[in-house]
């Protein structure tokens, strides 16, 4: 099955529709400006061609009011576009709280995806129609960029760090997924598809086929197997930060700074524990760099995110 051909004004996501409206407005503004300049240049060139019999008395070399207006008018228009664009842009950073999370791992030259229930895909991402989806992404090697043109979303995918991207698909179908950041020899072959399905059909698809234990269950197992629980459980005798209700909270650090306990904070705390030490604790935690792979980390993070529910 082929991906739907891309179009300029018919996006397939909720935010995409807003982006298209802004794009259309910019096209109108810039198109008008370009045509106005071109028409004026052509008109002057014809009217004032060498030898034509027209009035050339006192050609102006300055005209303060004209100059001020053609400086201020574009400025006002630009500031309007800037405000509008910033308002739309800030929504790219505000995923709805009910968004369904999917983990993305990029590597030369493929996309690996894992749903919360442990179902995995390669180079193909199935999502339900009308449900906000939030991708938590990282790369195993170079920088890649997760790009779905039909949704008007793109986000670089970095090694050793999580970036995220969210969208709500508004049309059923199969859409292009491209890598947009040059990542080496087969960069142009690092493409895939996003398949948008009606929710019921998606639920059926999600439940089908061989499924591993879900992420939270796997995370809980890693939490025990690697000895995290030995120190971080509330009943532990070791003085270590508690993990209940930690996710998303503000952490006070020993150097006086504060940090939000998001995916990147937790990732660094596991792999580079000395980077950010919470206030009141000794930096005794060992690094798990090299022991946990990206899949393990994704599972562990899913477990940490679920912590309040899991322990209550």
């Amino acid at each position: 099955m082929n991906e739907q051909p891309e179009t300029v004004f018919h996006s397939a996501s909720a935010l995409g529709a807003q982006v298209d409206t802004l794009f259309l407005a910019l096209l109108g503004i810039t198109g008008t400006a370009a045509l106005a300049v071109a028409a004026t240049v052509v008109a002057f060139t014809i009217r004032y061609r060498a030898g034509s019999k027209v009035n050339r008395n006192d050609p102006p070399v300055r005209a303060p009011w004209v100059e001020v207006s053609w400086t201020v008018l574009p400025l006002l228009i630009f500031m309007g576009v800037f405000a509008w664009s910033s308002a739309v842009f800030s929504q790219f950073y505000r995923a709805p709280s009910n968004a369904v999370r999917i983990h993305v791992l990029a590597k030369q030259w493929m996309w690996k995806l894992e749903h919360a229930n442990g179902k995995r895909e390669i180079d193909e991402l199935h999502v339900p129609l009308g449900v906000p989806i939030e991708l938590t992404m990282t790369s195993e090697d170079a920088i890649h960029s997760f790009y779905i043109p039909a949704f008007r979303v793109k986000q670089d995918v970095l090694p050793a760090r999580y970036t995220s991207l969210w969208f709500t698909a508004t049309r059923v179908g199969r859409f292009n997924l491209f890598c947009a950041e040059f990542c080496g020899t087969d960069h142009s072959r690092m493409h895939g598809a996003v398949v948008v399905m009606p929710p019921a059909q998606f639920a059926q698809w999600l439940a089908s086929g061989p499924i591993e234990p879900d992420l939270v269950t796997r995370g809980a197992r890693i939490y025990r197997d690697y000895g995290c629980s030995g120190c971080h459980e509330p009943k532990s005798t070791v003085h270590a930060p508690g993990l209940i209700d930690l996710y998303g909270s503000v952490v006070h650090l020993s150097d006086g700074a504060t940090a939000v306990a998001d995916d990147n904070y937790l990732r660094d705390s596991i792999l580079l524990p000395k980077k950010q030490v919470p206030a009141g604790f000794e930096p005794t935690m060992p690094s798990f760099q090299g022991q946990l792979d990206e899949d393990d980390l994704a599972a562990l993070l899913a477990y940490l995110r679920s912590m309040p529910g899991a322990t209550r």
Partner: protein
Amino acid sequence: MSTDESKVLDRPSYLRDGYTLRSWLLTRDHKRIALLYMFSITGFFFLGGAAATIIRIELMTPGADLVDARTYNELFTAHGVIMVWFFLIPSIPATLGNFLIPLMIGAQEVAFPRLNLASWYVYTLGGIFVLITLIAGGVDTGWTFYTPFSTLFSNSNVVLAVVGVFIVGFSSIFTGLNFIVTVHRLRAPGMTWFRLPLFVWANYATSLIVVLATPVLAMTLVLIAFERITHVGIFDPSLGGDPIFFQHLFWFYSHPAVYIMVLPAMGVASEIIPCFARRPVFGYRAMTYAIMAIAVIGFLVWGHHMFVSGQSMYASIVFSLLSFLVAIPSAVKVFNWTATLYKGSIALSSPMLYALGFVGLFTIGGLTGLFLAATAVDVHLTDTYFVVAHFHYIMVGGTVMAYLGGLHFWWPKIVGRMYPETWARIAAVSIFVGFNLTFFPQYILGSLGMPRRYHTYAPQYQLLNDFSSLGAGVMAIGYVLPLAYLLYAMLRGQPAPPNPWNAAGLEWQTSSPPPQQNFDRTTPAVGEPYDYGRSTPAQGQGARTPEGAQS
């Protein structure tokens, strides 16, 4: 041989000041150094153009058929590295700037003639490194050298290429330093700052950017080579480095570099348009303020290359605001060029065709920049062909068009001979048409989501790519033509009078080609800039046969 011809050949000029190779390779004459630069950058232009030609042929079909993926990546990297650092950045300043700035301000030389010659040698050394890189098998990182790909994953000749670019950076620093001191110290009596031709203003502003920004590039490149060789973590996250940090450093230089390329082009247009409209440039003061505003604000917009890189949302919004602001002085310049035509007496001679072509293409390139300054739209368009189209409109449509316009305008002064006007007009039109046919479809491709740096692509994108490749063919003809007829004119063209266009500006007060010491009389007569307006038509229109020499 006509009498005119023998008169030209007998007159002393910088070209007749020694015929030996040594007299060229050890010259300290800014005019000869300009020619050395001109021949060098022309060589690199056609080398970079050859890479682009193979790219365009490969992209005629969606699949891989002409070259393999690795070679394709090396081709677009070579194209970018060569065109940016070995053609565009030196193009107007090192050739036309070197030749004209002392003449325009009534000086006999640049401030540091030996440094000027050293600049060309440093350029040549950098060029040799790049040629060795190509012969050794190329480099496949893209001209942007993004980490950690360039430091950890690319197994091509990254260090060699980086060393070449590092070296060539110093040639532009030398030239920039020279221009700054020359403009400050060597202006003729009466040549006040607000009498300077806008070409001098533009090159002065460019030089400031070069001197302030290029060292940052040099440091960044050193860090790449250092990390690649020693594996000390600077950009590599697995060693505690930060790959985004590289992007900040790189664009801190590379965005101002766009203005290094386009400001001198604006300067050229500001000389040609008043001459062929036969009236003073409109809003001279506003033009100088706009030039300086672009140079200053241009330093503060680099983050607009990084809206999807993972930098903070607030950083992106601030960079977006500043990017909209930097568009204002560019818009002012376009309006001023347009207003300069009002009540003029316009002759569409070949330099004017190039200059008006520059205005048109620069306008489209600038306006599409607004789409990319708008964060929400940029998320969709960045790293697609929309960006490729946008910067080619600025750098090729803008800079190359203006460079060629300048070469035509000052060719009689540089070589002392006229070129065939008809061929020049044919070339100007075919470049303009070919350019739009090549790059306009790329705006649509990008809006349709085709990512850049793609060796193969979805079949949906083929038709527009074919238009683009066809246009590249037309454009290539347009570029080969001037190579042929300008060289022909250099050897066989009709002798040029000192001022064939009846132009204002001190460079036209001396003979064509100028004597070694620039002016026969000690001080040229300095007046107000762009002293047109006596409604005398530009000469050269009917004053000579268009097809060049008859002898």
